């Protein structure tokens, strides 16, 4: 068993929090894992990426090699396409459909959706589900919930680490994020039937 997941988004979209839950649940479930992230200059509104590798065998490279990612998780649709060459042929793009527009040449959303759909992909509105759960800031947890359908870790275990992540911010915040996780999980599990 190995899962190589490339997470792509924009600085400030909560990729590090998402990776925190993945790392800790992978470790507790007894898997090997490695996870890279971006700090410094690139964070200032630029595109950021995190490579998460989970396996039952020793992992050597911190970076996912080209053509080996099983899943690209897009926090935002444009970024979900930036690293498609990391994806194994037939690999999955799982992405939020809500764009984050802070550049002038941002493509038409229809163009992006068409391009994403040309791959094996799941495109859904994580932002809307996050709002319904209680805050737009929980969209990373919606996406994590969606991703949980493809991971070897138990969902209960992942939720334990979501709780851990937000514990210091109070019960209300924990509740919202768990709700976001669940709704992401459900939204995509229905989709699973048709890909």
């Amino acid at each position, binding site marked *: 068993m190995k899962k190589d997941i490339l997470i792509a988004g924009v600085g400030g979209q909560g990729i590090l929090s998402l990776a925190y839950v993945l790392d*800790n649940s992978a470790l507790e479930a007894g898997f090997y894992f490695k996870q890279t992230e971006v*700090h410094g200059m690139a964070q200032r509104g630029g595109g950021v990426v995190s490579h998460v590798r989970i396996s039952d065998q020793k992992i*050597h490279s911190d970076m996912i*090699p080209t*053509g080996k990612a099983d899943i690209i998780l897009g926090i935002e649709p444009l970024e979900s396409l930036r690293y498609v060459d990391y994806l194994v042929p037939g690999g999955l793009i799982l992405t939020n459909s809500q764009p984050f527009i*802070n*550049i002038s040449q941002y493509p038409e959303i229809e163009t992006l959706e068409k391009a994403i759909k*040309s791959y094996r992909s799941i495109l859904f509105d994580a932002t809307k589900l996050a709002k319904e759960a209680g805050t737009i800031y929980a969209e990373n947890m919606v996406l994590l919930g969606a991703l949980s359908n493809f991971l070897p870790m138990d969902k209960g275990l992942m939720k334990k680490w979501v709780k851990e992540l937000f514990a210091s911010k109070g019960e209300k915040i924990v509740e919202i994020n768990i709700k976001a996780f669940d709704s992401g999980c459900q939204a995509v599990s229905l989709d699973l039937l048709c890909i």
Partner: protein
Amino acid sequence: MKKEIFMGDEAVAMGAIHAGIRSACGYPGTPSTEIFEYIMRYVENHKAPIHALWSSNEKVAYEESLGASYAGARSIVTMKHVGLNVAADPFMNSAITGVNGGMVLAVADDPGMHSSQNEQDSRYYAHFAYILCLEPHDQQEAYNMTREAYTLSERFEIPVMLRLVTRLAHSRSSVIIKEPLPQSVLPVSDKRSQWVLLPVNARQRYARLLAVQKEIASYCEESPFNNLEITENKKIGVIASGIAYNYIMEYFQEKGEALSVLKIGTYPLPEAKIRKLFESVERVFVLEEGYPFIEEKLRGILPHSYNIQGRLDRTLPRDGELTPELIRLAFGEKPKEHEKLPDIVIPPRPPALCKGCPHGDLYNALNEAMKSHKDGRVFSDIGCYTLGALPPYNAITTCVDMGASISMAKGACDCGVNPSVAVIGDSTFAHSGMTPLLGAVRENSNIKVIILDNATVAMTGGQATMCTGENMDKLILGMGVDPAHYRILSPLPKNLQENTDIILQEMQYQGLSVLVCRRECIQTGKKKIKSKSEKE
């Protein structure tokens, strides 16, 4: 056996804490910043008796760390690769003085220049100073090596360098941690002949440094960090150091077979192990992140019969970061099949100044003022404001190194550039902007120094700054800047006209003007509000 999740940087921090450090010094710089931040958090959470506050620059940090070592304590000093240029003077001389308490310099290189002006390789510095350098390949080794580095530093009485690269510094994995060592403090040194580097002492100390090289070399020969595995394949062998070792192991895992590999984790290099590898195979691939340091050592100038492949013969690219794919290709594999990139254009999303950033307001005013001064130039510096080089601002004409804005502006002004404007942040000013400003005061140089006082080290994540607000005013006026040409600007969109006018007025003045642009960084401002509301 306790397993914890650490970034490479954090594993170094934990290794140092567990080795019993009493002092941590450093200046923020990607990708090294998180080493120090981890220690600071640890000190706060555990009320640990470790002195850990940021220094004004890397040279100061290095000297503070050396002072801690002199006092008998174990200490760590952290910086990025270009920071070591700033600290090069004490660094080189600390090899001559040697140490008392164990001292580790953790320096993080940035191959590929993710967040830097160059990709210089710190291993050359270690060689230059004739000190020991350790290079971990993963988080576990980063922890183990840092702990071990203190023993080695005290054994050889030299500072030890721990070299990291971005990919390890910023990658997380689980690390097994060992029992922490107690803080053991040696007596304060009183060996004046060791520490007073008058030529008469320095010659003896240098001879001592040369003499200890033999012991260091024999340690490197035996060190478990240099591991040689010989396999059946007699054709090809590999020397791989640091993170490059991970990529070759990844390739072997995919291939299902391994070649003979010498993993390098220490410098100087283990010569006997290298000879043994070369005797076992016909050809050796040298894989290393950064400059071809090992490869240059192996090749020399005169021809020899060994067959070496690496960055120098372009088996691998001469510059930039290695990747697992580049290693595969070097071994003659076909490019790995992967999904094709889409046929639509994916526009780049470069970093940009945050929405509402005070620097943006300053650049808007400065651009307005410069419209009537087409021959003028804007010398900038290292920080978020360097992003003023990009659209929509395109406001700066140079950015070279910490503090260079003021000195370059003065040098250019001395040779006729007018207006000659310097743009520098508060932290960079404290780092190395004060000294060039003193020179400009003495000559009353016709330069316009704009200090962006956002009260933080913003680019590296909002560390505390050394000198801001009123303290800065007192400092600058105390240096002798004419109060009539010391102007405070409030960078807000509504003040665009007023700020433009002030800049234009000062450009009319033929002498030194300092304009302080004062507004808190919106990121640190937001953080304060957030942590306040969380507490309530």
